[in-house]
């Protein structure tokens, strides 16, 4: 029975191959043999000239998430001439594999912003895994201090800074979100300036404060935006929800809750002096008032609100213009809608400081709130 012999031989080979499964290969790294980096802070180095100080925030998994009061982290710092080198050196200090795949926040020191930002961010943008998910921000103090801060509201297995920037947690027009890929695009494109949120820590050391932003200028000192300016910018460009606005007119004080903001603009060059026609439409309700309101007067409130807010928008646009920064990307729009030719950008650089802003604000209040 040669057929059976053959079968027996085959099964024997299979059985002999089976123990191979129990052999540990070098590539098999289970999830518990990895340590997840959940934040990277970059400061200028104090020891190395033109170097960087890289801080990694690593999360420690806990067996039973429900039984621990708060999340525990581990921090590692290294100073080196380049970011990649620093991270390679940090790998020698942990027993597990450094897994950057879950890193979604990179904090920069403010001093680094005027440097050649493209070179040291190169390490991150070259990685395929995190460039679409990582948020960029600027630390109010040093990146190391901010990244290693743990706010009181942080619960286990959830990272506070992630919740700020993705839309699963808080949503506020003060919090600006910039992704890594967006940041790189804005840094490298002509006609637009990158804008980053600033992360501060409150005086009691209990919570983050993220309510203003900073606009980068290539190899120059960056320009900070105030809270209100950040709010306006964020709601105009990104339709950030939760925008509220206080109107004071005579003795009437009203707070409007705006839920939808629509903005479009047009660069008009051929009619008189160059100008930008911006049309903003806002929809919302009245959230608070110190007086009895009548629903039939809604149109009147619309008008009052529109006038007030229009002033603020023009103020913001003028401030940006005066500082010669363009986070809205007017210049990019100009470039994109004109035939490419030499000196196009120089042309825009001449036009922008003198351009006029013609803002039409349209406010549509839907109700005076749920109370009559």
């Amino acid at each position, binding site marked *: 029975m040669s057929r059976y012999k053959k079968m027996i031989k085959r099964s024997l080979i299979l059985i002999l191959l089976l123990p191979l499964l129990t052999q540990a290969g070098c590539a098999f*790294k*289970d*999830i518990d043999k990895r340590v997840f980096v959940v934040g990277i802070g970059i400061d200028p180095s104090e020891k190395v000239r033109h170097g960087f100080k890289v801080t990694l925030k690593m999360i420690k*998994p806990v067996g039973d*998430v429900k039984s621990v009061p708060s999340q525990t982290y581990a921090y590692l710092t290294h100073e080196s001439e380049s970011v990649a080198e620093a991270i390679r050196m940090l790998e020698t200090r942990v027993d597990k594999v450094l897994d950057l795949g*879950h890193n979604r926040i990179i904090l920069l020191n403010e001093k680094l912003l005027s440097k050649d930002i493209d070179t040291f961010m190169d390490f991150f943008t070259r990685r395929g*895994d995190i460039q679409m998910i990582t948020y960029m921000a600027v630390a109010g103090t040093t990146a190391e201090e901010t990244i290693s801060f743990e706010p009181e509201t942080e619960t286990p297995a959830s990272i506070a800074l992630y919740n700020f920037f993705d839309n699963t947690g808080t949503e506020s027009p003060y919090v600006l979100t910039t992704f890594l890929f967006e940041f790189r695009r804005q840094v490298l494109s002509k006609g637009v300036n990158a804008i980053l949120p600033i992360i501060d820590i409150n005086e009691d050391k209990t919570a983050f404060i993220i309510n203003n932003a900073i606009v980068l200028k290539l190899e120059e000192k960056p320009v900070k935006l105030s809270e209100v300016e950040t709010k306006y910018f964020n709601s105009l460009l990104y339709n950030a929800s939760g925008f509220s606005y206080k109107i004071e007119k005579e003795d009437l004080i009203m707070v409007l809750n705006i839920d939808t903001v629509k903005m479009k603009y047009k660069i008009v060059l051929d009619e008189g002096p160059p100008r930008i026609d911006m049309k903003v439409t806002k929809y919302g309700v009245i959230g608070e008032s110190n007086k009895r309101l009548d629903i039939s007067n809604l149109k009147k409130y619309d008008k009052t609100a529109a006038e007030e807010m229009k002033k603020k928008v023009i103020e913001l646009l003028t401030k940006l213009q005066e500082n010669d920064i363009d986070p809205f990307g007017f210049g990019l729009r100009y470039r994109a809608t004109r035939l490419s030719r030499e000196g196009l950008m120089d042309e825009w650089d001449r036009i922008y400081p003198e351009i006029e802003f013609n803002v039409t604000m349209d406010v549509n209040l839907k109700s005076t709130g749920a109370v009559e």
Partner: protein
Amino acid sequence: MTGQQAPAIFEDLSEQFKPSDDIIQTPLQIKGQYAFLFYLKSVVDGNTLQQTVIKPFFEMASEEGFESYIQSLPNRIEVPSKEKLFILISAGFVLIAIGDQTFLLDIRLVKDNEIQDTIMEPTIHGPQKALSEDIEVSINIIRQRYHNPSLKVEDIMVDDLSNRAISLIYDGERANPEMIKKVKKQLKNLNTPLFQSAGDLQHFLNNSKFTLFPTSMVTERPDRIVYNLVGGKVIILIDGSPNVIIAPVIFFDFMSSMEDNYHVSIVSLFTIVLRYIGLFTCILLPSMYVAMTSYNPDILRVELALTVAGGRIGVPYPSFVEVLFMLFFTELLTEASMRLPKAVSSTATTVGGLILGTAATEAALVSNIMIIIIAAVAISTFVIPINELSFAVRVIRLFLLVYTALFGMVGLLIGFIGIVMVLTNKDSLGVPYLQIPWMGKSDELRMDNR
């Protein structure tokens, strides 16, 4: 009393059947009239024999009268060749010789002709009764549900030792004649000494030696049979088995339940979608766990990655050993609860499912999430309506697991593409296995293959 001698064939018969004690060879005799009976008493209904043959014989006036009486009996069939005669006698036919004439009467005694309840493919709506173990009763059930002269019933003689009756049933107007020829040829060429059930026969109908996916369907539901008859399929019945074989079939037939036809459209769409999700879950989930925990934890969201990592604290073996270990035990559990008597099987599932699962996590042999995955996989395996496919799926996910353990997410993908390729390469009696029936239900029923 010189009497008449029994015909020569009776001698051959008794030669052939000796030394069985249940052969009866008896002459009937009254006033010079003779008749000879030959039968096996264990398979012949004695009462009917007495009522329809013996009693009339003594009441008849003449031999001729009795002869024409026998001639007109509804259960009389032509006397076939000698070889076939032996088989028929052993199946419960009675041979009668009157003068020079011989007659063959079907007075079979069948004890297993109850109609069974549907066990393998139960539905909430739809018929609750399945077929019977007796082929005549089964044909009766099918005929009673499909009153159409185009319904053809053909008996096939198959060359095996048990000489069971096998019937082909098809709708002569809808079934492809080529297909019928193919099925017949396939049945003729069966190279097996014995087969006992539809499942058995189906196995031998497959041409290749190693097969994982079934290429013909075994079913017990009369409504499914009728549905497939209308669709132009060929049904093979085998005596002694409450199941029939439907051929040819495609992969998607195994994913359909008769219940789909009995619900309102949205509900059945929902259940169909649910079923396909279940199919993919039970094939992919164990491998996905390995791929995600050991190769690409970046795919998971960070909260889940942390929970998985936390759950794996203290687990000594790599993730694929963990999965293999748990899959092995669930397979044992499924197998055990199937083979055990009903009274004991609930204990087995309790001990296995609850106690083993909890204890394994307590002892940190496997992670909590593993238990959830294994439970989800086990449940979703049961969602597949036809049992044969769910057996195949149980094997397949082990293949995928090996691929994934070796090559990670890429391995999972390659393994899955491999499965699709195997399925694409397969055919059921010439019909591509993975053929997608882009046809509405009414078109399918109106389908005319010729």
